[in-house]
């Protein structure tokens, strides 16, 4: 059987392949070791039994595997967990939407300002990262306190939006900045007014930016526990808090792992939908 010619056919083929391997090996190892392995450990932990003082009970008891579906049964047996999941999704959705509405005009403004000023404006957007995240959230306690808004769902969403706004602005800006201004001129030339130009040209071309910004906000918000803990009331706990509680307070690692796994599954399902919907249509920037 003859060998199919490869892209890098010729003498350099072997060397090229080796280089590719060497370059991709470290990140692959890193991901396997620090991402896939812990995820699998957690998946396994979700079927195990809690240890007496946290941690996990021995895997083998009397020569038999000590595994069960108990935690999953527990989760699906009580409406309260589904409710917390649902609430978390609603908070994440609201945060994403508000971030989008705030970030879009700002990203557009930056993308359409003079080239020299853009860098300064982008720098201002990421400036909050220069100070510690927790300190910034604590600052919100001082801000919201006098308005009697502290420990309300509103405070949680305000904090979430504040913290995640840059993650929406940056991908949107990166997308909008690449748009060819000639397209808007062409649309105007062919009879499109300002709003129509936005709706028919700018908005559809920015869909990839909207999707990636939304993913970058939605997913971290879903698992966030610090903000609801600091700014939210006791009735406003989210999945993040629930998981943290299992590990740190209730010492029920298997339940915590189960909750994590279910959250991950939900996020992956959503991401799959988002990737499908947001797949850059042919030709979009």
């Amino acid at each position, binding site marked *: 059987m003859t060998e199919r010619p490869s892209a890098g056919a010729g003498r350099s083929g072997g060397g090229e392949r080796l280089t590719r391997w060497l370059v991709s090996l470290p990140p692959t190892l890193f991901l396997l070791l620090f991402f896939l392995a812990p995820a699998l450990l957690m998946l396994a932990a979700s079927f195990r039994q809690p240890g007496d003082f946290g941690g996990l009970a021995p895997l083998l008891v009397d020569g038999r595997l000590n595994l069960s579906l108990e935690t999953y049964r527990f989760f699906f047996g009580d409406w309260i967990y589904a409710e917390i999941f649902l609430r978390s999704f609603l908070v994440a959705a609201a945060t994403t939407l508000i971030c989008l509405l705030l970030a879009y005009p700002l990203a557009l403004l930056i993308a359409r300002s003079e080239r020299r000023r853009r860098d300064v404006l982008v720098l201002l957007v990421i400036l909050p990262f220069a100070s510690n995240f927790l300190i910034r959230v604590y600052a919100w306690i001082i801000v919201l306190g006098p308005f009697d808004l502290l420990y309300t769902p509103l405070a949680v969403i305000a904090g979430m939006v504040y913290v995640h706004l840059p993650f929406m602005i940056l991908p949107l800006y990166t997308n909008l900045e690449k748009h060819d201004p000639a397209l808007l001129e*062409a649309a105007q030339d062919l009879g499109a007014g300002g709003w129509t130009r936005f709706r028919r040209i700018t908005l559809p071309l920015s869909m990839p930016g909207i999707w990636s910004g939304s993913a970058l906000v939605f997913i971290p918000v879903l698992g966030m526990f610090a903000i609801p803990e600091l700014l939210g009331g006791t009735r406003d706990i989210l999945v993040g808090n629930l998981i943290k509680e299992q590990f740190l307070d209730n010492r029920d690692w298997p339940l915590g792992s189960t909750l994590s796994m279910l959250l991950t599954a939900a996020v992956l399902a959503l991401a799959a939908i988002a990737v499908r919907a947001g797949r850059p249509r042919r030709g979009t920037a």
Partner: protein
Amino acid sequence: MALLEIRNLTRCFGDFKAVDDVSLSIEAGEFFTLLGPSGCGKTTILRMIAGFDEPDGGELLLDGRSLAGIAPEKRPVHTVFQSYALFPHMTVAQNIAFPLQMAGTEHAEITARVRQTLDLVHLVDKARQFPHELSGGQKQRVALARGLINKPRLLLLDEPLGALDAKLREQMKDELIALQREVGITFVFVTHAQQEALAISHRIAVMNEGRIEQVGAPEQIYGYPKNRFVADFIGTINLLPVAVDSVGEGALRLSAAGLGAITCAAASGVGVGEHGVLALRPEQLALLAGNERHGFDNHFVGTVRDQLYLGDVTVYRVALDNGVVLEALLANCLPGRARSLAPGDVVVVGWPRDAGVLLHD
């Protein structure tokens, strides 16, 4: 009444006068070209007609009505952009339908007219493709179709052939001419390529440094350039410094330093003693062997300096006795005779009296 009347149009960017007191009138159905080197103001004029730029002085009248203060989207003027500016997220059919949708045309009519227009530009089978799947020439035709479909009063074309390779450019030239004839819409075409302008235009305005140097039909511009800039910019030309000796019945007697008398067809407004240049196109000059018999009014001996073989023609550079070097073309009618003259050969350069144009200083 002219379709588009440009009156004393002026546009400044800081101290720089991009367009300087330009007046033109463009008739309905015309294929009109603004020709000039880059930076001469031709694109600025186009942008003011489209409405993307406002004049600092003068006015634009379309069908007798001023365009001042009318937004680009409200003008019955469409543009074919140099980069085509096709909407990348829309199919060919959607791109072409866009102007009709903007005009609020009914759905059924849009479908019919898109089909008709696709047919006009031979792109029916590409209707569902996206712009990035098309070749340069196909993109060009989509841009044209999109500009034409809503029947604008004027179609502006900003160097639309600039991005195409030479072969395709030739073909698109022919298509543009045919298309314009078929739709009958007035085209205002901007280019810096003089060959292109000569081939496709009904009339050409030659521009330089924001001003119009000459307006006329291609053969007028080429055959009777008004000044040195036009003569030099369009095609190749030999400039022979001369002085006017006498003005006679139907002919001028000129003298060139170191050469002698030259006879040239009479021109108006020429006085004895004036200095200028006689502009001669390379193809107007005949090259003859020293002993050949001929009937040219003007003939001078020269030496072949060098030659440039171009396939269809060979260009010879011949130095006259007074040191002036003239370029002459010989068509290569017979293969094998292409290089009949060699550097160092002594030849006679001859031209009839009605060849050449006298340009005053």
